[in-house]
């Protein structure tokens, strides 16, 4: 009908001519499976990689377990603190906003330390020297340690410092905040975690 018709048929006949003398190659299936396999592997790796990258800080569920080597030489495991409310604060001595909350955290710690509340400070990519100096500067007395090999930060998927997680008595993450806090905010968060524990014995 149209010119196009003719060209389409040309294509078909051409293809037929080329295709004719070709027996099915042995091993062709192998190649198809190989290529398919490679594609699937690539897709899985990059799909999972992207999902992993896009994960954000956990805000509920069990808090990832870790053992913190404190600067005073103890090892504190999160698991051993079951039954207590745990405030996990990620900080660094090079971080400006952390400085504004350091004294507030210490004050909150002084207020709650005898009420079944534990504070853990975790210094992100910091050095012992600078971390010690920072703790001295702000008179911080609750246990602090460096996050060696950035393992704990990776578990909690932090995106910066300061970030604070409140863990309830059962070891669940109760709250998460990524702004510098004042004493009032910290107290409110701790109270919420404490009362939650009482309501569901």
């Amino acid at each position, binding site marked *: 009908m*149209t010119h196009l018709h003719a060209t389409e048929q040309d*294509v078909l006949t051409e293809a037929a001519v*080329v295709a004719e003398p*070709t027996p*099915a190659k042995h091993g062709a299936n192998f190649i*198809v499976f190989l290529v398919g396999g490679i594609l699937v592997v690539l897709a899985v790796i990059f799909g999972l*990689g*992207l999902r*992993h990258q*896009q994960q954000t800080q956990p805000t509920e569920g069990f808090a990832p377990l870790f053992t913190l080597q404190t600067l005073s030489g103890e090892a504190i495991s999160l698991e051993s603190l079951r039954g207590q409310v745990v405030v996990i604060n990620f900080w660094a001595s090079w971080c400006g906003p952390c400085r504004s909350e350091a004294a507030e955290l210490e004050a909150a710690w002084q207020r709650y330390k005898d009420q079944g509340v534990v504070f853990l400070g975790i210094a992100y990519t910091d050095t012992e020297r600078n971390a010690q100096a920072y703790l001295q500067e702000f008179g911080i007395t609750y246990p602090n340690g460096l996050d060696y090999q950035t393992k704990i930060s990776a578990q909690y998927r932090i995106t910066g410092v300061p970030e604070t997680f409140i863990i309830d008595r059962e070891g669940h993450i109760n709250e998460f905040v990524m702004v510098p806090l004042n004493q009032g905010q910290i107290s409110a968060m701790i109270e919420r975690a404490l009362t939650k524990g009482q309501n569901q014995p």
Partner: protein
Amino acid sequence: MLAELGFIATFLAFLAALYAAGMAFYGVRRRDDRLLLSARNAALATFPLMSVSLGALLIALVTQQYQIAYVWNVTDPNTPTFFRITALWGAQAGSLLFWSGIMSAFAFGTIALNWHGQRRLMPYVITYIMLTLAFFLGLSLFLENPFERYWIMPDNSVVKSVFALSGAVPPAAARLAETSHGLNPLLRHFGMIVHPPLLYMGFVGFIIPFAFAMAALASGDLSTGWIKATRRWTLLAWVSLSLGLVLGGRWAYDVLGWGGWWGWDPVENAAFLPWLLGTAFLHSVMIQEKRGMLKVWNMFLMLGTFSAVIFGTFATRSGLVDSVHSFARSGIGFPLFFFWFSVTAVSVGMLLWRWRRGELRDDRRFNGLLSRESLFVLNNIVFVMLFIAIFWGSFGAPIVSELFLGTNITLGKDYFLQVTPPLFLALFILMGVAPLSAWGVTSLLRLGKALIVPALLAAAMVALLALMQPAEPLVLLIYGVIALSGTVALWETYRGAAARHKTLGENWATAVTALVARNRRRYGGYLIHLSIAIVGIGALGSELYQQETQRTLAVGQSLALGGYTMRYDGFLGGQIADDGRVMDIAQVTVIRDGREIAHLRPRRDFYPNAEGMNTMTIPAAHSTAENDFYVLLVDWEAISASSATFKVFINPLINLIWWGSLLLVFGTLVGMYPDEKHALATAVAAQPSRLAGVKA
């Protein structure tokens, strides 16, 4: 008004692209020319629609419509007009729209130039380009909309929406202007006007050869038609990408202040990966055109190139890898991932299907191990190995290690300089030998003889380099290998011209121009080889013999490095520029052989309004053919600035990289320049009968 206009134009372009894709496919299946014409017209319409859309965003940027969230994010009242324009591609949403705009322009171009010559392939070409365009426009419309405006709702909350909401009022203009961000300081550089557009042209441009390859697979017209039709398109994309890469390096050198130009960062590598496969493709298609071999392989390289383009886009725009260059994380990660996977799976699947049907059989077999075609195959293997090594280092190993071994690792320059140099060296050796070998078979003896003069020329160049910069024997040998790849190109051109000069009696100028005109593609290619050799020598020299030192100087004190002396003269603190940045400038004098040769002003810029990174260390450099004297202001004594710390680099031969890339552009232009009868649409002359394919 502008926001609505831009959004509606984008939406219409989206509909037109979907319509064109569907109608072109349906039309070719039904063999209905009217449907095909309608599809073509819809595809053509995307370009003017995208022009309107981009124009609206551009006007909004220039006229400071801060109610539009994108404008508010990338400009502020202090931004100079130049950077208002470049802000069009200064962040994710705008650059995605710009990307789609370029794609619609390429679609327009290929339809205008190839419609008549490639009637069989064009419907499928339109389908593939328009599907891709529709995908990217979809991202712009539904996930990264640059036309969204801020509105204040009756309950005082702020929402983003393109269209006016009932009861909502726009925020006060003064408040918006005051709080606006301004362009990311990294992007405030002259390179911003050319580097991203070139890079995007390079990326997007590969869609044309890709769509033609897919069209060939879909239509069953598996002759070399698709290659011939797209040769210049491929070259255009390739040269844009090459230049984009080099300009990116220049930008890093000028702005990032680390004394280098290529950091092997995943994002840089993401742009280099398609270049590797594209370059391999440009070489191996010659074998198919001349000898009818490697049909499957060429198809595969083109599909791989485009897959790498989409992968690079996905990797840089999704936050898959962390990098200084990458865009902020956003919701387009998974859509881009699925698009990449579908493009790759569908194209490879179709290739395998045609191959299993036996429709991609080669016309000839290899018959000599030492022939031009086998050297080309070797070249392709090396390119693919480079691709694997760089892909693994940038995306494979870090992700695999984090996912399956639970350890974060960095593969930096360290890794790449352990793995890639042998491969680059192999490429340069092949560049030296392959142009001298013959199609079919060649003998070692002949090859050896042909190499004598180029080798002598290369030795002379090495001697010159050794005089400028003493180097170890091994390095000199490597210089020699790289130089040889350039001198072979020069010598082959000379021999061709000499032959004409002697046998045809032409004078030299005529002989050279006639020779080049006789085969622009070959001699353009030789020029490109020469330019790559120049870039290679520059890259090697600046990498191996870079010297650096860091010293704190009091005013009047000097430091010495590599034959230069630099004196700290004084300090200009707190200079405020037109665009609101605060500059702290050190004044230094560079002295060589007792003569003052330059006054330099390395500085630190501070951008008070910028979010995130707000200081930039701007180097100053004194360039000569031999090397660059490159100074960074690292630090200074507060207030008095009576002493300041400088980091000084000497980068030998680095200018060869910039000069070489200019030659590369020239060489590509020579290679692309249309033959008289064969315009961009190669097949117009060959198939005149198909011009009038349409019945009214």
